[in-house]
Every structure is written in C-alpha cells, then in structure tokens.
C-alpha cells in the first residue's frame, strides 16, 4: 500500500498560487527527492504534508498518509500525527533546537507529548535513538545543551527527535545544505541507513542534484509550483523528457573554458601569514587565550591567474580573506600586493587594486541607492574619478560587460533578481579595473541555472579583461571549473596546493582525498541517449 499519496495538491497563500496540481507518491522504504530551484514550491509541498503552512494558506487536493486524508484532519488530529507518524528534519541545525533545553529533554519531548510511554522508558528510548544517530551516551550524555554540539551533531539530534517514535514517513527539508561536505556525507549515509533499517518512507527536499542522484529512488522535479517531471532516479537520469530537467542537470555540472593564464608574474604574495584571535579570559586577571585561525600560510597568486581556495567552515579561509583585504591585522608574516605591504591602514593607491564580491546578493547593497551610485562606490578611491559623459560611458560599459543594460543604472536594487544582483556586485568590483578581485562564496547562494550563467560571465570577463582573482568556495565542482590553481585549507593551514585539475584528479593529501570523496557527484549524463 502506498505510504504517502499526494494527488492534485494546489496551494494558495492569500491570492498567490504557490502549488498547482502537484502529484507524487512514496512507498514504504522508498526515498523520494523533490528538487527544483528556489521558489519552485518544494518546501511548501513538505509543509503542506505536515500541515504547518502559513496562516493564510489554503490547500486543495488530496494528501493521503496510510489511508488517512491529511487535509480533512482537524488541528488536534494533526498534532497527534506530527512526530508520531510523520517526522520532520529542517535545514538549519544551528537554530532548530531550543537553546535552553538539554538534548535529552528535547528528544524525550517527542515521546512524552504523544504519551507513547512512561518517563523512565522514554528516557531509555531517547538514549537508544541518540545512540542510533551516532551520539553515544558516554560522549553525548542526555544532559548536553545544543550549544555544546557542532552543526552536524545538532542535525543528528534533530533527526533523533524526528525518528524517536519510529514514524512511517520522514520529511527532510534541505537537511544538509547548511553542513560541510564531509558532515553532509555522514548525515546522508545516516538517513539512508535509517530508511533501510526501519522501512520508513523518506521525502527529501533538496536543490542539490548530486545529492538527489546519489540518494533517491525516485525524483520529483518541480518548477514554479508544478511537477515538471517525475520518475525512478536511474530512468530519469538516463532519459530526461522535460527540457527544464535537462537544463537543471546540465547547469549543475556546468563547465566553463578559461583562457590560458599569462606567464607567471607575482601579484599577491602571502608569506608565512599568521592570524590570532583572542579568546575570552578564563578569569578576570588571567591573560586572554589565543586561537590561531591562520597558521603560517604562504602562497603566491600570479597576474592573470585564477586561484581557488577550498576548505570547510572554520578552516580559516574567511579570516585569510579579511587579512588580504586589509580588514584585519596579521600577527606574523606579511602580505604583499604588487610589491606593497597590505596593512589595516591601506593607502588608497593600494586599496583600489583590490575589490571583493560577497556571497549574499541581497545584503551587500544599500536599498536606497540607485545602481548607478552603487556600482560607482569604489570611485572614491580614485585620484581623479571620471565625471560627466566619461562617467556615464564607464557605467554603461561596465553594466554591459556583466550582461545588464545601460538603462539599469537608474533602477533600485529591489528591482533585480538574485542573479542580476550578483552581476551588479561584479560590476561594482570591476568598474575601477582592480588588479585583484576576491570572490568570497560569490555563487554559493545562487540557483544552479543562475550560477551557470554567472560562471559563464566570469569566464567571458577573464577573456576580456584578463582578470586575476581569488575564488573562495566550499563547492568543489565550481572551484574545479573556474580556477587554474587551487589551495586546500584545513584548520588554518594550506594542506595542498597545485594545478586545479591535478589536485582534483590526483589528490596527494589525505584530507583533500577525504573532501573529494565526500562531495556527492552527478553521474556522467549521457545526453545522447535522451
């Protein structure tokens, strides 16, 4: 018997249609992945099954769980089902747990709220289920608080809460998006094991097609609130019928062709850089402790070269970036840009050689300024910034270079999509013709199709302006295509560096191997068979 059957589910929030005639089903012991880009309605589908929709939402159609029509259930009946028959895991493990309650209390709450068993037994079950998700009692007693655990460990607690009553269906909404690749691999492995052991159905929502291909038995591809294609993973990968599906998979493994870098001539030299942070004092009169975030890092970035920097969160890549930008002082070693020392009091002449593009295309612009003003912000560092017609021409030229129109200069930032905003951020970095641009996770927040176009743009700009950049990312597949050389950073140290292709195809350091092994990859798609 089908475990979950969603038939012609439509959803409106206020007067906006969010889902249109969504249909799919899950069998017991089956993993079904719902995928699509942001705004496709995949999370809303999950929330509709949980009946945890926003207040103004109005759902029509049928959601049947084990013969029970969920849309007909009262709120009280739904409360009895949630946690008992359906468990749910969310994206952000750092905030998904109550910070003032112990993990034991939070896992036990699932059991106690459904009055499934007496307190003593519930405690034993909590222990058992935490052990099952990889948090054994001796190292992770029930009395631990969430802040004492890492992101991956917290996600395990959330999973323990969701499976404590052995639900028939587990819904996981982007369960690994906020985690590092190695942690992601472990959590996905855990989910797969749980499905195998317990025979529950798993509905996983993710934008990451590599994860989908790796994990799911069946795939549901969504776009603008509609299911465009669904099928068994293997068949679907072999034979994509809908052009959108094909586009999505092609964009995920998008490769660009970079022009050959010129002969090596050093632009940025980092020599034995050391960056320490003070940690809070242990007592009022003790010396503050020290945390070494960057340990004796050295590398050279040549003119016209594209250098990648990969590593997991907390490895020190952001700290290193801030030091290169002259935003933080070094405690040892030095950073030279074009032969001049980078300090926290940079001379404008040195400062204007550097520009940066950040991850968040929404947060990095002042919403009250027009694009014209936003992208000319770096002009204040120029000795004689262009004025009048020269200024207008430069704005028009730069906007055209990043694939926008000169007329866009008069618009405000909220009038653009995420991808367009990132183009504007690149225009802002480009307009003063800096010698070095730093891309700090610049494509991480973008949908795959948008990301593919931004990567194309970067490749074009490399050819047109012979850019030199440092590309920082946790996404190995992106670094692999967009850089010539790359550095692998771990716990403040560069553990491996070399030609990008060489590092990826023949990694020397065990950590690099571990990273590459953990990253899910799309199988080679034989589009000719389609």
């Amino acid at each position, binding site marked *: 018997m089908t475990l979950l059957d969603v038939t012609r589910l439509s959803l409106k929030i206020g007067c906006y249609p969010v889902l249109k005639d969504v249909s799919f089903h899950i069998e017991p012991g089956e993993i079904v992945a719902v995928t699509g880009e942001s705004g496709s309605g995949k999370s809303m589908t999950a929330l509709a099954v*949980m009946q*945890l929709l926003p207040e103004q939402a109005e759902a029509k159609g049928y959601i049947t769980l084990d013969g029970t029509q969920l849309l007909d259930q009262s*709120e*009280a009946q739904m*409360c*009895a*089902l*949630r*946690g*008992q028959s359906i*468990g*749910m895991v*969310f994206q*952000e493990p750092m*905030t*998904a*747990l*109550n*910070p*003032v*309650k112990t993990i034991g209390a939070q896992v036990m*709450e*699932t059991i106690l*709220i*459904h009055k499934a068993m007496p307190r003593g037994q519930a405690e034993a079950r909590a222990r058992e289920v935490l052990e099952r998700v990889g948090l054994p009692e001796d190292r992770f007693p029930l009395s631990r*608080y969430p*802040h*004492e655990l890492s992101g991956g460990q917290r996600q395990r607690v*959330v999973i323990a*809460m*969701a499976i404590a009553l052995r639900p028939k269906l587990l819904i996981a909404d982007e369960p690994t998006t906020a985690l590092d690749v190695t942690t992601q691999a472990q959590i996905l492995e855990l989910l797969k094991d749980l499905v195998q052991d317990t025979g529950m159905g798993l509905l996983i929502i993710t934008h990451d097609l590599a994860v989908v291909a790796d994990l799911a038995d069946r795939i549901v591809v969504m776009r603008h609130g509609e299911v465009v294609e669904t099928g068994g993973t293997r068949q679907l990968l072999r034979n994509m019928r809908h052009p959108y599906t094909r586009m999505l998979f092609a964009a995920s493994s998008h490769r660009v062709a970079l022009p050959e870098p010129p002969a090596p001539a050093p632009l940025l030299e980092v020599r034995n850089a050391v960056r320490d942070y003070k940690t*809070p004092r242990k*007592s*009022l009169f003790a010396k503050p402790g020290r945390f070494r975030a960057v340990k004796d890092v050295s590398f050279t970035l040549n003119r016209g070269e594209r250098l990648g920097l990969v590593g997991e969160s907390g490895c020190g890549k952001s700290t290193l970036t801030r030091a290169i930008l002259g935003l933080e002082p070094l405690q040892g070693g030095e950073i030279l840009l074009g032969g001049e020392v980078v300090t926290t009091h940079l001379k404008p002449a040195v400062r204007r050689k550097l520009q940066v593009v950040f991850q968040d295309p929404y947060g990095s612009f002042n919403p009250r300024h027009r694009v014209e003003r936003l992208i000319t912000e770096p002009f204040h560092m120029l000795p004689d910034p262009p004025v009048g017609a020269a200024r207008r021409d430069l704005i028009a030229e730069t906007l055209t270079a990043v694939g926008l129109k000169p007329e866009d200069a008069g618009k405000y930032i909220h009038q653009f999509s995420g991808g367009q905003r990132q183009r504007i951020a690149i225009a802002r970095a480009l307009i003063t013709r800096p010698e070095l641009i730093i891309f700090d996770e610049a494509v991480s927040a973008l949908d795959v199709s948008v990301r593919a176009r931004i990567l194309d743009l970067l490749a074009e700009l490399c050819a047109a302006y012979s850019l030199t950049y440092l590309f920082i990312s946790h996404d190995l597949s992106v670094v692999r295509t967009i850089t010539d050389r790359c550095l692998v950073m771990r716990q403040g140290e560069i553990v491996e560096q070399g030609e990008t292709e060489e590092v990826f195809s023949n990694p020397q350091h065990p950590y690099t191997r571990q990273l590459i092994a953990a990253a899910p990859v799309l199988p080679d798609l034989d589009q000719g068979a389609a």
Partner: protein
Amino acid sequence: MLRYALKRLLSLILSLAVASLVIFLVVEVAPGDPASFMLGVNAQADTVAALKAELGLDQSKTARYLSWVAGMLGGDFGTSYTYRTPVAGMIADRMWVSLPLAFYALTLSTLIAFPAGIYAAARRGKAGDMAVMGATQLGVAVPNFWFAMMLVLIFAINLRWFGAGGFPGWEAGIWAGLHALTLPAIALALPQAAILTRVMRSALLDILDEDFMRTARAKGLTRRQALWRHGVRNALIPVLTIIGLQFSFLLAGAIIIEQVFYLPGLGRLVFQAISARDLIVVESVVMLLVFAVITVNFLVDLAYALVDPRLRSRA
C-alpha cells in the same frame, strides 16, 4: 555556575567601590556649605568653623571619604546635619516603607504583564492583541500620579475601601501595612506593567519566529504547548533586564507617589535632604540606592544564567 556567580560577585564589589568614590566626589563638589547653611547667613565665622569641626568637615577629603566608607561598612552612616540623629536609623525607618512598596509594585506589575504579554503574543494581530496593546499604550502615556489620584478618588473617597494616604507602620500588623500600601503599589505598578507587557510580547514574538518553534510543532506540540514549553523561557532574558531596571526605579523613583499618598519613604527623605544641604544623608541614601541597583543587577545576572545555559558555560 559557581564560577560565574563568583565572577559576577567580584564585579559587584568593584562597582560598589567605584560608585562610592564617585558619589562622594560629586556630592563634595556640589556648591553649598552645610555648616553655614545650617547656621544661617548671619552666623559668626568662628561659630561656622566650630560647627565644621564638630561635623568633621575640616578634615581632608581623603580622611572624610575613608571614615565615611569605614563607617558604612560598620553600619554607621554618620549623623544628619539637620536632624542631628543617626542617618542609619532615618534610612532604616524609610526603607521599611520603600522596600516593601517596591516589591509590592513589582510583584503586581509582573503578575499583570506576564499573562497579558503572553496572551497578546499568542494572538498576534487579532482583537485580543490589539486590546492589550491599546491598554499598554494608555498605561505608558498616563503619568502614575494621575492613576494615583484616580485610585484615591474611586477606592478611598467613593468606595472607602482604602485610606487616602499615610502609613500606620508595621507595628499595626502586616495586613494593615499592606492595606495602606495597596493603592500606591497599584499606581506605581500600572505604568511599569504596561512597559513590561510590551517587552514580554515583543520578546515572545521574536521567539515565535525561531526555527526551534517550528521544530516543536513538527514534533506534535500544539501552538499553545510550543509557546509555553519553548517560547516563554527563551523570552525571559529581555524581560528580566527590564524587571531589574524597574526595581531600581521603583525603590527611589516613587517620590511623587509617596507625596500623593503621604508615605514616609526614601524618595521624600532624599528630597528633603537635598533642599536642606544635608550632604551626609544625600550621600548615604544615594549610596544605598546604588547598592540596591548593583545588587539587583547581580541577581538579574544570576537569573540569566539560570535561564540560559549558554551564559553558564561561557563564564
């Protein structure tokens, strides 16, 4: 936890030492010589000098500061310049009115604000929320002495349930004392309750948007269960901060209410002492209030740590 408490205690002692020095210096540099003020404008120079010697005003500033601090530590706050009675006794009498009044008012305001704030947050944007918000708007806007006068008019003059003012003293019995303090406590509590309700509501609304509230709902908790089990405790941190500030205010800031109800409290004592240039009383009362404020902050810090385990382990 113990470590955290000891650290807070150390910072409490340091704050008190600094505060005593500042209070002493500020009061000393204030214009007006108590001796000549007490003797009037026509006093002979040698009479003034003799009085200064008697009051100890001819000693060096350091000596006077040290003897003041040493005296306070031993419970001796000196002798009032105007009343010629020990300051400690005067303050103690007034404390027995002001401290219970402050606690009474704070209890009332908390008892009103917690349910009202939680109720409003649970019904965000609905009629109940709007009614509560409207009432708090009124509570914040209307001064407490107006409430005081209305209370006297209704409950003392018309209904005759309470006296219009005065305090019989605790010798008359606990109930008589509390009875006399009820109207002033209500008048003090209403504006404070209005502020606290708003803080409670907005703190709780912030918490309701947190991811862990959604997690709680996904476990099968009802909206109400999630609010009580996961929301309220997390919302307590900003609320505790405000309660701490309010207590300090209620202790010394009740001067107008004390005036309206003719209560012999600290506020009136300090007011009279300032007008009479009775420096030693002013210094002592201010020091006492500082002590109260710092102690309350210390207690609030401890309460934070009880509420939030993250603060416990950071210490």
